[in-house]
């Protein structure tokens, strides 16, 4: 056993050496011992983690095969507390966060919340309807640019531009949805990937409209309006949400509305139809699900949520450029959905925080922080393939199926 593990370690080290050469450069004149040390540290951390995981799993398999992991026990403990307390506690925590945090932390918090609402939107397309979308960030870009252009050219306020952005996002969702109605799996992934890049390249090259790679700037922030009776008649005082805490509360409200919306969709007739399409499209058609409309609706609604997040993003920064909407962003949003547990709303919220906040924690590792990020993702997928907080449906599928099969076998009369 030990010899086997050692042989594996040697193989890993061999590949590590190959990988490290291009990372450090072939010419060793500028060799920096510190950089090499950091790379080695990250890699050895991964290897050590790997062994810890293995030892942990072996111990668990032999001695306490039936016992639940601490994550599950913690989950059960939380479930015992009445729902209203946990949700109320979380909302209270979210509300008081800006009072105790500094500006940097609030900024990271805002980014987390933006990605959570993106994750929730993508969850409709990927998690519920089962359509793999690798160009989701394009709809985020549509929302951001719609607000920017409407505000800069027509002077429309954030609230007036928001519905227009949502409608445009939904139209874009249908534009990508319609030609891909007959596609599944890999082909769909390729087309959506292409669509995401097309949107970015159009934004990058349409100089006269989007100012190309320079981006657009000078958009007004979202505003609140208060009635004012001082000068005889009724006037409105405009209060622009410029400070970070104010923007934080705005995105928090957007996220809460998104959660409510997605939850209601999830439990509705339409949600049921989405799941049916994901499970078996032919059977869904035969049950009378109008698959064309229901699939387009998934794209359109997913895009609408992304568009809202995009408009907020542009308004918050008061700046936008095409490089905010790289393929990498689509990947991160997809990672949030997968890591959290496909189809699970609490999972996506937790994963959003982990995936956005953790790379911030690793900033000390500089260029290697994405490496650490990758290591965490890989470990997660090995340990909990169904995600952090799996939707009950999915947990049963991955872990519970053996037990059910056994039951089915025991009581089967045939």
């Amino acid at each position, binding site marked *: 056993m030990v010899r086997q593990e050692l042989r594996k370690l040697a193989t890993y080290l061999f590949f590590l050496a190959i990988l490290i050469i291009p990372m450090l450069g072939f010419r060793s004149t500028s060799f920096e011992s510190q950089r090499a040390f950091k790379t080695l540290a990250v890699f050895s951390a991964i290897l050590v983690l790997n062994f810890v995981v293995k030892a942990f799993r072996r111990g668990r398999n032999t001695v306490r095969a039936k016992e639940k992991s601490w994550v599950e026990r913690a989950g059960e403990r939380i479930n015992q507390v009445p729902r209203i307390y946990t949700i109320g506690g979380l909302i209270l925590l979210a509300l008081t966060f800006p009072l105790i945090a500094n500006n940097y932390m609030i900024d990271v918090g805002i980014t987390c919340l933006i990605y959570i609402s993106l994750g929730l939107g993508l969850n409709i397309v990927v998690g519920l309807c089962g359509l793999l979308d690798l160009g989701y960030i394009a709809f985020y870009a549509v929302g951001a640019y719609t607000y920017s252009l409407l505000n800069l050219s027509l002077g429309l306020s954030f609230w007036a531009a928001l519905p227009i952005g949502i409608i445009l996002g939904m139209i874009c969702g249908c534009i990508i949805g319609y030609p891909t109605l007959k596609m599944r799996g890999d082909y769909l992934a390729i087309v959506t990937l292409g669509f995401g890049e097309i949107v970015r390249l159009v934004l990058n090259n349409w100089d006269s409209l989007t100012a190309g790679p320079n981006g657009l700037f000078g958009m007004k922030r979202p505003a609140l309006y208060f009635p004012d009776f001082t000068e005889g008649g009724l006037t409105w005082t405009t209060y622009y949400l410029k400070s970070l805490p104010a923007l934080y509360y705005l995105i928090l409200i957007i996220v809460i509305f998104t959660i409510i919306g997605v939850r209601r969709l999830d439990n509705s007739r339409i949600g049921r139809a989405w799941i049916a399409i994901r*499970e078996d499209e032919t059977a869904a058609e035969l*049950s009378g*699900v109008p698959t064309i409309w229901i699939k387009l609706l998934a794209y359109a609604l997913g895009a609408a949520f992304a568009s809202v997040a995009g408009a907020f993003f542009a308004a918050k920064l008061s700046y936008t450029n095409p490089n905010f909407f790289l393929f990498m962003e689509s990947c991160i949003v997809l990672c949030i959905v997968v890591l959290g547990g496909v189809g699970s709303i609490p999972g996506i919220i937790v994963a959003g925080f982990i995936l956005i906040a953790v790379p911030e924690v690793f900033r000390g590792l500089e260029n290697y922080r994405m490496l650490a990020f990758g290591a965490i993702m890989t470990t997660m997928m090995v340990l909990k393939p169904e995600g952090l907080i799996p939707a009950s449906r999915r947990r049963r599928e991955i872990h519970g199926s053996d037990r059910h099969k056994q039951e*089915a076998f025991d009581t089967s*009369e045939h």
Partner: protein
Amino acid sequence: MSTKPILELTDIHTYYDNIHALKGISLSIPEGDIACLIGANGAGKSTTLLTISGVQPSEKGEIRFKGEPIQQLRPEQVAEKGVAQAPEGRQIFPRMSTLENLEMGAFLRKDKAAIAEDLEWVFGLFPVLKERTGQLGGTLSGGEQQMLAIGRSLMSRPSLLLLDEPSLGLAPKLVERIFETIFEINKSGTTIFLVEQNAHMALSISATGHVMETGRIVLTDKASALLENDQVRKAYLGE
């Protein structure tokens, strides 16, 4: 029982890209009957059913359901007219519970009381399903999945039920059970069009039978006559 036909196919041609799968199918099914379509693998039996329900639309020809042409309709519109299909290979929703699967069958209906009534009826036909309401469809045994597929298609309260190979991969004893239930469903007033490789079983409960070979119907007769037919006996009954 033979009254006016509930379903009429006239010269139906269906293609899968370049493959000419159905080469001019014509048949009619009288209301209230059980009719069956038998034939070898790849003869186009499943395609016939998928063409009727609109999943694999025909290029040419006419399909009339209760006298109304339906060949141009989308699958959900055909389902709305009262045609339900239990697809081949137990295509249930694996990650939905038994109850959710059955509820999906009633997707187009809004009359909750009647749905509950039909649910009880399905549980009466397949008592095993009642014991499995909370279990995921994918974890049911083969026979249970087949029952669930039939039960789901019944939940739309169809006037015509299309069954694709209900005996596929099941133990002989279970096949008998399924066919008894099919007979029972028919007695409650549902016309049934059955596609089967198990020709003996299918013919023994049907009123009429159609024999299919490479995209064409080569023989149509009373089921009892087909059971006696030398050609059929040799090719499909293994005698």
